[in-house]
């Protein structure tokens, strides 16, 4: 199974989770996701997701100018984003439990149809 396909469905909640504790700019979020084990995540996918979550009202955004180089755009979570994260956590927990049960039981001899 291709992990990048699975990642597409959960990138929103993953991005929300990494900005929950601390605001981050695009590549910073990418780095944190990779550090957490999602090594195949694409830069552009993360930037696009940040943008979409911002548009959906789940994130705030502000620009931090830099003296040395180009400015950075930071994203932070807001109340709506937290609510979304909370909901998606529950959905994920239930879903993963269901999948775990399904996959565990289907490996039992005689039950795999």
């Amino acid at each position, binding site marked *: 199974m291709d992990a990048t396909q699975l990642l597409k469905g959960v*990138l929103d909640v993953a991005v929300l989770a990494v900005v929950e504790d601390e605001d981050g*700019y*695009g*590549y910073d979020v*990418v780095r944190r996701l990779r550090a957490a084990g999602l090594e195949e995540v*694409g*830069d*552009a*996918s*993360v*930037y*696009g*997701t940040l*943008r*979409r979550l*911002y*548009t*959906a*009202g789940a994130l705030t955004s502000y*620009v931090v100018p*830099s003296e*040395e*180089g*180009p*400015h*950075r*755009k930071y994203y932070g979570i807001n109340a*709506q984003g937290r609510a979304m994260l909370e909901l998606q956590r529950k959905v994920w927990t239930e879903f993963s439990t269901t999948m775990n049960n399904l996959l565990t039981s289907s490996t039992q001899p005689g039950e795999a149809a």
Partner: protein
Amino acid sequence: MTTSTVTPEIVAFAQGVRAALADLPAEEVDDLTDGLEADLAEAYAEDLQRELPDPGAYATELRAAAGLPMRTKAKSGVLSGLAQSWTDTRTDVGVAIRRNPALASVVEFLGELRPAWWIVRAWLAAWLVAAFFGNERGYGLAGSWWLVAVVFAVISVQWGRGRWQGKGVPALIAIGNVVAVLAFLPVMAAADDGSDGGDFDRGFASGVDATVNDPPQDGLLLRGQPVTNIFAYDAAGKALRNVQLFTQEGKPLEAHGSRSDDNTCAADDCSTVWQPGQLETGQSVFNVFPLGTVAAEWDDEAQRTVPKQGAFSVVPKAPFLKVPGVFTPKKVANSND
């Protein structure tokens, strides 16, 4: 934060990405690629071995993740320009709605009602088709036309759920939705109008209206013929004069053409007018029979025909001098017998 330099390659790459997004509104492109150079510079400073991907592929990934529409082929022409600006407007409105929590929740709520709309538009379509053949019945349909409505409902719901969508179907749905929205109120009005009966009932009612409630010439009719005067005879069969007649509702009975307001002409050429009776109260009334007539002339000042001064009222000759008397038994019959 890592301090990093933006190389010319990165600048060129970022330009390529922006060019690949050029079909989106400028504001959207800015928001999407804001900080792109800084992010890229940092990423490549960390890993010098990395190669920059294809800007087009990168832009496509960015677009997909941001939930933006895929690049539309740049077409020329008024129609595609209109379509493009329509798409842009929809995107802008969508963004504005999502940014406003109150609006967003309203839109979300309306979104939950979509299945209801699928049914409504199916009913609308079935009603319109049935109405074309004269088979609508108020809000409902005649007999087997309900089957058509059910078929339409199934198609509509399947379309709403994104099923059965072949080539050209989305355009058909869009046009159908516009027609349905435009037709909704007129159809509701027509359906409501028809809900108290079909065409026949309405026609019958309007016919009754025409005969009963649309009095072109107030007054009495006998089998369609105007009754201009009434001659009363007493029980003995003797002609009576100055008989006051009233309807069952107590309204003064007015013969045809004897209305008290303007048209009081008794003769076709208006050489005579009806002469009202005079009550003790001084009131002039036209329910005193038989009505008399009086010679008349046109009065320029009053702009109407008025009785000639000094003319005498003439009571038209009764049709019968005497009629048979009414038989009255000496004993009053007991209704219990």
